[in-house]
């Protein structure tokens, strides 16, 4: 279960015609990569999102991000770059963080997807969500869901991370408002709180 999807949107694109493009200027490369994927067959997809089963017909080119935001109506993951460069669309796929914009929906057949809405709610927030508010680790808040899920995955594998480890875990998440230093503090606070709960 705990594995990266067999193929992502990037490998899919590569399969099409990307290989010979690597020497072109960035702009041209970008345009080609961004050209719409060809429409394809639809297939039935079944998966679990934040504990809820979802089943429906999905086109081959639909990304997990597109599915979550536009078909399922989940406001957790955000669309910022749609190209795997910012981490705002981060979700947990079978327990591992992925950029939902670079993951094809059909590669998630039978998978378990958790978004920021799945780890806590305003009523029962996760300690990370509480710590982000307490330390004011967000301004506009658009990067926040992705930041929280990257931090969540870090704390799952490392209950007591160093500052450096936190920085590394968040290296794929961009914040334009500049909240990083407060995010580090919030993650440390949440880690301490989670350890306290575990030891109780």
């Amino acid at each position, binding site marked *: 279960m705990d594995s990266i999807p067999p193929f992502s949107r990037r490998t899919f694109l590569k399969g099409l015609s990307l290989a010979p493009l690597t020497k072109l*200027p*960035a*702009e041209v490369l*970008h345009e080609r990569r961004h*050209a*719409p*994927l060809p*429409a394809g067959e639809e297939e039935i997809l079944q998966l679990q999102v934040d504990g809820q089963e979802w089943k429906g017909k999905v086109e081959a*080119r639909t990304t997990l991000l597109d599915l979550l*935001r*536009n078909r399922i*109506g989940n*406001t*957790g993951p*955000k*669309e*910022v*770059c*749609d*190209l*795997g*460069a*910012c981490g*705002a669309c981060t979700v947990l796929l079978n327990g591992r963080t992925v950029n939902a914009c670079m993951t094809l929906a059909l590669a998630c057949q039978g998978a378990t997807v958790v*978004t920021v*809405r799945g780890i*806590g*709610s*305003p009523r029962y927030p996760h300690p*990370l*969500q*509480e710590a*982000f*508010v*307490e330390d*004011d680790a*967000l*301004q*506009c*808040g*658009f*990067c*926040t*869901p992705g930041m*929280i899920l990257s931090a969540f995955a870090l704390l799952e594998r490392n209950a007591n991370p160093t500052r450096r480890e936190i*920085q*590394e875990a*968040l*290296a794929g*998440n*961009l914040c*334009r*408002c*500049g*909240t*990083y*230093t*407060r*995010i*580090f503090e919030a993650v440390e606070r949440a880690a301490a709180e989670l350890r306290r709960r575990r030891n109780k």
Partner: protein
Amino acid sequence: MSSPNNLEKKDEVFPTSPPSEQVSIRAGFPGLSRMIETSRRNPNDAPPWSLDTKFRIVGTEVPRLDGLAKATGVAVYPSDFRPPKLLFAAILRSPIPKGKVAEIDISKAETAKGVLAVAVATNKGRQVRYVGQEIVAVAAETRALAEDALAKIKVVFDADEAFDADPIQKAKAKLPEVDALPASLAEAGANGKEEAVLRMAFETQVQMHHPLEPHGVTAWFKPDGSLEVWASTQGTFMMQRSMAQAFRLPPSRVHVMTPVMGGGFGSKLQAGIEARLCAELAMEAGRPVHLFVDRRGQALAMGNRPSSLHWIRAKANRQGKILDWEAESYGFPGFAGSGRVAYPTFYRGVRRPRHRDLRGNTGAARAFRAPGHPQGFFAAESMIDELACRIGMDPLEFRIKNVDPIHAMQLKMGAKAFGWKQRFNPKPGRSPEPGGPLRGAGLACTRWGGMGGARARVLCRIHQDGTVEVRNGAQDIGTGTRTVLAVVTAETLGVDIKRIRAHIGDTRDPAGPSSGGSTTTPTLAPAIRHAAWLAGKELLDRIAEQKRLPRKSLSLKGGKILKDQKAFLSFEEACRLIGPEPIEAMGQRYRNWRGFAGGVAGCQFAEVEVDPETGIVQVKRILAVQDCGTVIDKKTTESQVIGAIIQGLSYALFEERLLDAKLGRVLGTDLEHYRIAGSMEMPEIIPILNKGCNGHNNTGAAGIGEPPTIPTSAAIANAVRNAIGARVHQLPLTPDRVLAVIDRIHGGKQ
């Protein structure tokens, strides 16, 4: 002159009559204040807060009210909003920098699968002025289908080869002569002269805004013909006005919603063409349309901070006096917008540059967090620093000699907290360990307006159940507007903040300002206070009436009703008496008084480490002393200062729009090739809020979003100068530029 002694107590007591004709308050900073006459012009205003006011909630750490909604993913941003039957739009952009649309054929797109509407932005015969200009927009059932349809549109351009995408080269040729760059460490440190006369040039890059939430709106026409817009905007009322004009509707028939939004930094202060195209598509399709610009469109067409070029000639004497200052500057705002720059003219002897904008065939500049300031301050603060270096004076001392008393106070305060004496490298260009990192410290000052003052109204309702509702239709761009509404109301009424329900981002509510120029808080806070003040007074009126008591015997203090100065009713008990109709009061924003000082001042100190082998600059620590007026909420205020510093650091070291001038094309239109500072590059950041009360309005609040981003790049550049022993004249301070200077002055070896 009556003394407002009711303000000196911790809990505010409502007087039984309007405040006296004339009130004077103490304004300024602890240790640097004076009395200011305030209320002649507006006897109905709430009594002003002063430097002596003891607050209950104001200035404490109140968590941002919408923080939890954002952190749990339930907050609905305009780009998250999905009304039923929503269509998605995509935009076709010009691939050429200059020319005309010769032919345009949209017929195949109109009949493409899933397409419901097509809108032409640049018609046949119309001018194209940059790569990325909007040509056609399509709305379809999904965005993929809209993008498919774009590929079916045929456009023939009549390209004009005589374009200039990068006029900076033209300007460089016109620049007066500059001094030869120092060829050795000894030469760079040349000091001990009676006078230093320098002629130097400086250059800054184009910076892109890249707010994480893209520009755009979701719009639809209701059956009655009125227009609904969910907009990611910095100005809900500006959006309402623009859309009303574009569609010839009375503003009352355009409703704009921005409950939360994902950043703008100045680039969302206008209703761009994307908003109008979206509503056009919605009108044609008869359904809601979602049009949010993709990242490439953001990079090409949604604004930028223009690049600049400076030439400065300055002279200073051994005593640290600036004797002469002459400057020329150029800005390169693209095909439109302003490239003007601002210099720190609060230094005695520093004068504004003669400025010219040169237009070129790239996307237009837009306001970007303190427009013109980081550019101009980088150049001027670098020059000031270099003058100090050349006459052999500590740059801190040199600055203290040349600034106003507020900056001088802040410089001393900051230097002490930062440990300037220990950090400033007395031997620039030398490392304690051979081959080891070069260390240095630098500083720079800032000043910005941010006093607010647009007309604004705020509605305050006290309900029978004891909750208080406060409303203004302006938006929150991430600064914490909603929290400001709640804190000021709770403080004024003396009640727990949990009672307050704050509503923003809806044009059906009273008008508020656009979030530009750091004006949202200083514009709204006085109106919030006024509204809560009036509502509190009416509460007392109603109780007096109900209980048949003389109105004069009642007062409101610490959220409790007093009768003849003794506890009488709790706030809840009092509210139960008001009857089913809530108390409703409209507060207004009076004009500013002459406060303590015009604008907010600040300074920043940076500590860097430069690797002499690679030229990589690592910022270790930044300390900011920032005047914020009355701090309404400590946490969110500090966050703004930290965010401004991080954006300044990113500008200083990484961000740069690269251009292929021959093709007129922007390179790196995604977030992978346009580098923005990330978690790995974060220094320790210490924001020191230089609390004061500016005396411009009844709260003494000031705006803080922009001022702390102004000096960061200059402080870092000056620290690099102190570390390596010579100056890098161009931003960003990339490894190659730093290494070139190191190689030059060290003769290739360190």
